[in-house]
């Protein structure tokens, strides 16, 4: 098996328990306690919490502990099943990091509060909510993802779900961009901020904070670059009195990476390095609060700021909106606003898994090696432009692997796993290659044909 133990653990956990840590559905619905959300879809619509937000604090706790104790994730992953069997992990997580987790749980609660205030109708599936399984896609376990996605699609059909509103841009991307490629799927998906911006425009909602705050906003790649959602965030913030937004140098569809995208699990030290570039840029804005809309980004930004001893609070956008709504909310009547859906990436690749080698050969042959992607590749920058862990280098390695050069799939996979999948390469490629997705398919190829 060429897949490293930590990815194996994450994928097994995802398949069995629905989340990377293997905490299971009981933990994942804890955030909704006391909210009295209607069970099941309302007019076909659900609020989807997903498998990341509800447990992100436990992940952050584990991430920080592991690096403090200098523990290697891969050796830990080997003994993890034992811990899990004994139920130790869950106990440790609950005992150590509940308060850390409550910050992420609060984002979900705040999102629900805001939606309700705007009169959006939805239900919640509780333990029945099927996790998106995005980790399987991220790590290139595409055969598993394909099967998994079709099960999830069936479940949504069975439960009568036709529309998903989610705070999690990773799940939104999975449902909107990857599910339709791998299975039959026609559930409508919207990110929280899309719904909120539209409803705020329709009602002319205006709120104000009790405090004055200079904020900066970190656009998550999944939301801005993949989903094209940029304007909505700015509109929502412009309707909150007391908030001054200062954009960092890279923002909107040209956002920079905070070091997640799965890298935080496979190569945590590199993930940290990537986050440093970004947190420095965010700090340069002079803001005292960084907002964002992705649980994994929240975690990596928090870690980055702490590592560099920069005093900066990181908050989910939903939480700031809720804070303002709770303080004062008025409705001024319909506003004329339009939100552009940005399209900066090539279309999602629809490749058959049965002839991946051919496809990869064809596409990586088209790469001109111009290096434009490397100029924007966050891991290339973080590693002093080490070619083998840069966007262009990964294309060259995939090409060499499918050409049958004497390379170890396991070690090539290690280079491919050094990617954060931020998509800036795909956005920049003059040839129009979807480099980011080619890397995901490259992972799949290395796994499927694995030679050590």
């Amino acid at each position: 098996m060429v897949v490293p133990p930590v990815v194996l653990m994450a994928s097994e956990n995802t398949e069995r328990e629905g989340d990377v840590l293997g905490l299971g559905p009981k933990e994942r619905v804890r955030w909704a306690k006391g909210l009295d959300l209607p069970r099941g879809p309302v007019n076909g619509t659900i609020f989807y919490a997903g498998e990341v937000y509800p447990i992100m604090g436990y992940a952050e706790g584990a991430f920080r502990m592991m690096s403090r104790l200098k523990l290697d994730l891969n050796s830990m992953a080997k003994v993890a099943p034992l811990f899990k069997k004994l139920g130790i992990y869950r106990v440790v997580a609950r005992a150590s990091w509940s308060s850390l987790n409550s910050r992420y749980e609060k984002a979900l609660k705040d999102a629900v509060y805001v939606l309700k205030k705007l009169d959006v109708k939805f239900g919640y599936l509780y333990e029945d909510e099927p996790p998106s399984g995005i980790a399987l896609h991220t790590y290139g376990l595409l055969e598993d993802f394909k099967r998994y996605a079709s099960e999830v699609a069936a479940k949504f059909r069975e439960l009568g779900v036709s529309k998903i509103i989610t705070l999690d841009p990773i799940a939104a991307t999975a449902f909107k961009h990857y599910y339709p490629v791998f299975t039959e799927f026609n559930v409508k998906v919207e990110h929280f901020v899309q719904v909120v911006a539209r409803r705020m425009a329709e009602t002319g909602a205006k709120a104000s904070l009790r405090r004055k705050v200079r904020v900066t906003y970190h656009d998550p790649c999944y939301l801005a670059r993949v989903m094209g959602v940029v304007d909505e965030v700015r509109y929502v913030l412009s309707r909150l009195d007391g908030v001054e937004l200062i954009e960092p140098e890279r923002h909107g569809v040209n956002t920079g990476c905070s070091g997640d995208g799965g890298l935080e699990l496979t190569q945590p030290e590199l993930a940290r390095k990537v986050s440093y570039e970004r947190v420095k840029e965010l700090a340069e804005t002079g803001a005292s609060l960084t907002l964002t809309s992705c649980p994994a980004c929240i975690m990596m930004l928090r870690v980055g700021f702490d590592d560099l001893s920069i005093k900066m609070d990181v908050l989910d956008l939903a939480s700031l909106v809720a804070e303002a709504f709770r303080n004062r909310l008025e409705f001024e009547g319909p506003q004329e606003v339009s939100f552009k859906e940005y399209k900066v990436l090539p279309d999602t690749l629809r490749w058959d898994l049965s002839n991946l080698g051919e496809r990869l050969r064809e596409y990586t042959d088209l790469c001109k090696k111009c290096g434009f992607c490397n100029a924007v590749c966050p891991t290339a920058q973080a590693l002093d432009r080490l070619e083998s862990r840069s966007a262009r280098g990964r294309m060259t390695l995939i090409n060499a692997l499918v050409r049958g050069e004497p390379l170890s799939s396991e070690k090539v996979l290690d280079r491919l796993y050094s990617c954060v999948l931020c998509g800036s390469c795909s956005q920049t490629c003059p040839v129009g290659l979807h480099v980011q997705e080619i890397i995901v398919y490259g992972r799949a190829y290395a796994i499927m044909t694995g030679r050590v």
Partner: protein
Amino acid sequence: MDVIKELKGELGEKVLTEPEDIYAYVTDASNVLRQVPLAVVRAYSTEDVSKVLRIANETSTPVVVRGGGTSLTGASVPVKGGILLDVTPMDGIEVNVDDGWVMAEAGATVAKVDQECRKYGYFFPPDPASSRYATIGAALAENAGGLRGAKYGVMKNWVLSLEVVIPGGEVLRIGKPLYKWRWGPDLISLFIGSEGTLGVITKAWLRIYPLPEKVVRILGLFNSLEDAGRAIFEIRRSGILPTMLELLDDESVNIVREQSGLDIPETEAMIIVDVDGPKEAVWRLANQVTEIIGRNGGKAEASDDPEEMKRLYAVRQGIYAAVTRTYKGVLIEDVVFPVSKLVEALREIKKIKEKYGLPMPTFGHAGDGNLHPNICYDPDDPEQVKKAEEMFREVALLAIRMGGSLSGEHGIGLTKKELLVEELKSVNSLGYLKLVKEIKRVLDPKGIMNPGKLYP
């Protein structure tokens, strides 16, 4: 003596030998030849470079220096194996406005150097298209140019002083970061354009220039190439020196229109002119250019608004993407003609295109006569590959015949070394080659530096 063992002993983890690392370095933006190096060394300092050149010399191991790997002529492909010396980790930059220079280490990107200067109201003018990833050391070794060459020249025009490491590991300083110094023959120029065959440039002190107060961009569309040519000559005769003067033929414009869906009128030739200067004066110059374009049968549009300027530049900006998206194989030519012969050259280039029947959108820097015919072909069709190679050769020979040169800014590398002989013959100067080879022997007696490149 085991090279790898020696290298690892001296440089430890900076030496990469795992195939899964070194296979990433098998080619550059020339993208033709692939060759696997013995090892990759990541240099973090001049000292690292010195160690590598000492060990390589002792063991007669080839050394290929690599920056961003953006060479279009194969300069950084390790054709004879050996050590691939990656200098990208050494990327320090220091700006000294009072003394008028920027110091850049070899691995700093050209764009970053420019950006740093801009923080002080200055800029670094040479701007090769690859500047966001191309490095200073490599841009000097290739004597790269760029769009602003029309007014500001190429890399060699901006060097005050160099630090170089020569085979054996000795570190030399050539000159000082002063605007005037005299040490005898100018050895700076010896290393400029040497394509890594004489030594390794590790640091450079470069001149900087105050940022122009204002730039105005003018787009001109012409119904005939001759009209465009006349306009270009008249701009020169009127004493205006544009920052940038780009020329695109109809095929280039058409291919961008098809690929991008941009609304671009039919035209036989397009020029894009930037003029810069004090804000009180620049529009006067721009209006003069606009009038010249009109007088010569063209239609002009001018703006100093950043967004509008982007729009006027969209075709030139999109050409590389449009060509690479339309055709699988592209050979990018890089020839120079005397500016006075540009129109004639473009007519001749059209004839070559008709003779071979392959697409060849042609555009370039008309301000300095540097054209880039892009020969498009299908790499899977052996007949087309052969045709493309012949066209490549014929275009270069045309430039030589018309008093131009076979390369303006991309260099000789692997792809043009045989053609260099033809150019030297055309000016009865084969002796030049002999002399250069003798100099090379003095500096690099064992022939370890970038073997197989530049010298026929």
